[in-house]
């Protein structure tokens, strides 16, 4: 029983306890969920320890217990410098989501918070699991509560969106399931490190065609989750219809399951196939970046705009991963966190606005700066972080990713230039939106007396703001612990001789 | 002689079978079925099935068919009316499928037994009541007991479904 186990199972325990709480006592339920999630968060901070002090680069907090005897399925969890931050991101955002739902959720309160904690359990689990079977279980476990969060507490078209979300992601994940089973049949184990070692040593021999198909099976699941163009259309719907907490968890953490999967499983296991497909992946990612930005620009709905911006931002992450060098990958991981913080923050703020006005249409706002200055100030900061202003978090990620892709042999300068236009476009749509919402005169009477941030909302937004600044100014706090792990992943990716020598030299210079 | 008997009764059986299918009144069909059964009983006898031929007449034709006729009478079932919209699929596909099915089975039977021996009356005499009884109560004891349960179920079922009160 390590600290990690505690972090994984605390939310589950809290979930079960909430189920036992009396359903009329809203305040108790809220307080309990808050307490539980905060405790989880604090516990998860302890996970940084080994990375900060010794920085082994390999998996720590390793727990490997047999779960199902035959086939040999283990409860095998551990984290490295990459998953560490994603775990912390999940645990950080959960209490925030609890807080933001405090008053907004007024029916089925108990179930809401229960689902939220169950979701946390699933998400944390996904990032820690090292057994494919376990991974898949967590993967799907996280799906169900989100489905309910959207479907029960969402807005008008919630059902369509919830079902779309569910089916879309499930389609991908079942293909991954086939891949997992196939891999098991070849290797006789579900243990990720062992499979990896087998693939590396050649003791699990796969034809290149099999590798390609397996890669695609895994890729399908992850690409839908990311989501990569053109598999993204579930995302705007789900985001728009979800309650604020749902949108936040979805955008901030759930999408990262896809990119995390790519980085952890897809590419390191089948580097050759990944390299073969890299051109396509990169093309899709770049299309996603530009396309998402352009479509975001013309959205009339705030949440939809943010949702499409996620498509764009996640395109950057995929780009970073596909560049397969140290800057690209570090940037990708960093951008995952950034996007979690910034887009999470945006959804929180948009949620606060729509709580006040019960609409998310941009044209229904305008002139808020005079009415709710604090909220708008926070909004501005988060917007700036989202468009990658240097000094705030978004910049570091985008910089590293683009740098990585620039230096990568897969992408190179020309592709990178295309991708970098996304930076221009992001400024365009975000600032335009910001202007329409906050500047000008108040055009709708209803907006004239909106309340500014209250104490609870301050509590929600301050951590986000703090994170944007800290991550922008001191990125090394985060980069340093992840660096050895990223190096490990990269050494896996570049393990075969198929990499052209000059390329290796070039990326070696940067390492 | 054997061949003659075969042809007569096989022909009768097929005729009655066709009649069963063609007749629109259930009583006519029932009587045709009894005809088939009787013809088959003769053929059974020819193949050495003394016991089974008797059982065919007593149990099948005698008991089961009487039940049928009884129900037909009870329900006062008349001739089928003019054809109403039924299953067009069944109507058109049926005959094709049937032909295919028959052809297949016959082909397979021919292929299976290319040079089968001729049937000689009396060359197999294992079908006597004694033989049947001996085997039935030793080797086939369990199935025999099982059928008792089967019949019990049939009784219970029939009662449950058909009893008056409730």
């Amino acid at each position: 029983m390590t600290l990690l186990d505690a972090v994984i199972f605390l939310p589950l325990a809290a979930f079960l306890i909430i189920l036992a709480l009396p359903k009329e006592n809203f305040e108790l339920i809220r307080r309990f969920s808050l307490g539980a999630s905060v405790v989880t968060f604090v516990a998860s901070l302890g996970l940084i320890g080994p990375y900060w002090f010794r920085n082994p680069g390999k998996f720590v907090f390793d727990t490997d217990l047999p779960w199902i005897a035959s086939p040999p399925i283990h409860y095998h969890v551990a984290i490295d410098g990459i998953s560490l931050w994603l775990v912390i991101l999940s645990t950080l955002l959960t209490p925030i989501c609890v807080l933001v739902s405090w008053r907004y959720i007024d029916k089925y309160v108990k179930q809401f918070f229960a689902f939220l904690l169950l979701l946390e359990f699933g998400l944390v689990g996904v990032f820690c699991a090292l057994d494919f079977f376990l991974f898949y279980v967590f993967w799907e476990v996280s799906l169900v509560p989100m489905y309910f969060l959207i479907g029960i507490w969402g807005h008008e078209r919630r059902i369509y969106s919830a079902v779309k979300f569910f089916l879309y992601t499930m389609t991908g994940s079942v293909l991954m399931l086939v891949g997992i089973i196939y891999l098991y049949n070849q290797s006789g184990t579900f243990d990720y490190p062992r499979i990896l070692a087998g693939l590396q040593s050649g003791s699990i021999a796969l034809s290149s065609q099999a590798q390609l198909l397996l890669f695609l099976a895994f890729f399908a699941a992850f690409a839908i989750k990311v989501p990569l163009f053109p598999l993204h259309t579930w995302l705007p719907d789900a985001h728009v219809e979800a309650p604020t907490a749902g949108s936040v968890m979805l955008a901030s953490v759930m999408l990262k399951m896809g990119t995390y999967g790519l980085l952890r499983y897809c590419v390191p296991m089948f580097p050759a196939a990944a390299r073969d497909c890299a051109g396509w992946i990169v093309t899709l990612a770049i299309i996603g970046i530009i396309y998402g930005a352009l479509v975001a620009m013309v959205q009339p709905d705030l949440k939809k705009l943010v949702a499409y911006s996620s498509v764009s931002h996640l395109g950057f992450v995929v780009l970073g991963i596909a560049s397969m060098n140290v800057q690209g990958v570090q940037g990708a991981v960093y951008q995952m966190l950034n996007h979690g913080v910034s887009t999470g923050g945006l959804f929180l703020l948009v949620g606060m606005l729509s709580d006040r006005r019960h609409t998310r249409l941009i044209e229904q706002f305008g002139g808020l700066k005079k009415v709710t200055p604090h909220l708008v100030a926070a909004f501005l900061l988060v917007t700036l972080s989202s468009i990658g202003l240097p000094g705030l978090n978004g910049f570091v990620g985008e910089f590293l990713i683009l740098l990585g892709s620039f230096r990568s042999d897969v992408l190179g300068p020309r592709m990178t230039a295309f991708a970098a236009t996304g930076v221009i476009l992001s400024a365009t749509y975000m600032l335009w939106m910001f202007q329409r919402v906050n500047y000008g005169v108040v055009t709708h009477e209803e907006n004239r007396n909106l309340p500014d941030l209250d104490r609870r909302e301050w509590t929600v937004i301050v951590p986000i703001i703090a994170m944007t600044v800290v991550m922008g100014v001191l990125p090394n706090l985060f980069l340093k612990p992840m660096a050895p792990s990223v190096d490990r992943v990269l050494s896996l990716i570049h393990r075969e001789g198929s990499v052209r020598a000059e390329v290796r030299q070039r990326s070696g210079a940067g390492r | 002689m054997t061949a003659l008997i075969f042809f007569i009764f096989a022909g009768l059986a097929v005729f009655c079978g066709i009649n069963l299918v063609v007749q629109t009144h259930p009583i006519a069909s029932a009587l045709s079925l009894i005809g088939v059964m009787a013809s088959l009983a003769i053929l059974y006898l020819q193949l050495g099935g003394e016991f089974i031929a008797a059982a065919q007449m007593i149990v099948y034709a005698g008991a089961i068919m009487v039940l049928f006729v009884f129900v037909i009478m009870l329900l006062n079932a008349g001739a089928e009316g003019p054809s109403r919209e039924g299953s067009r699929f069944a109507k058109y596909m049926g005959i094709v499928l049937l032909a295919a099915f028959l052809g297949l089975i016959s082909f397979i039977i021919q292929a299976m037994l290319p040079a089968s021996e001729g049937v000689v009356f009396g060359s197999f005499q294992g079908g006597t009541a004694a033989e049947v009884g001996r085997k039935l109560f030793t080797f086939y004891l369990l199935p025999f007991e099982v059928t008792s349960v089967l019949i019990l179920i049939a009784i219970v079922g029939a009662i449950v479904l058909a009893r008056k009160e409730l």
Partner: protein
Amino acid sequence: MQNAVPISWYLILSAILFGLGVAGFIYRRNIITVFMSIELMLNAVNLTFISFSYKLRQVDGHIFSFFVMVVAAAEAAVGLAIILTVFKNRETLMIDDISSMKY
């Protein structure tokens, strides 16, 4: 015996009768006749058993057809009871009328 009938002819006869049973099932519209078609099919099977029994010089086939008869009797009891309840509910024995549940 030159003019003896080969055993396969018996089998083909049974196949024809089986086919006629199937035809009756598909083409007859009165439920009772349809049910009788099933009996015809069972008879055809019985003939197959007996024929094989002759060929194998075994009594087992006879016993099988005896069991088939028992089964047929049981089926008849239950089946006719079901037909009775259907008739009570609908006052019809036309099989095409019994199709309220579909799709």
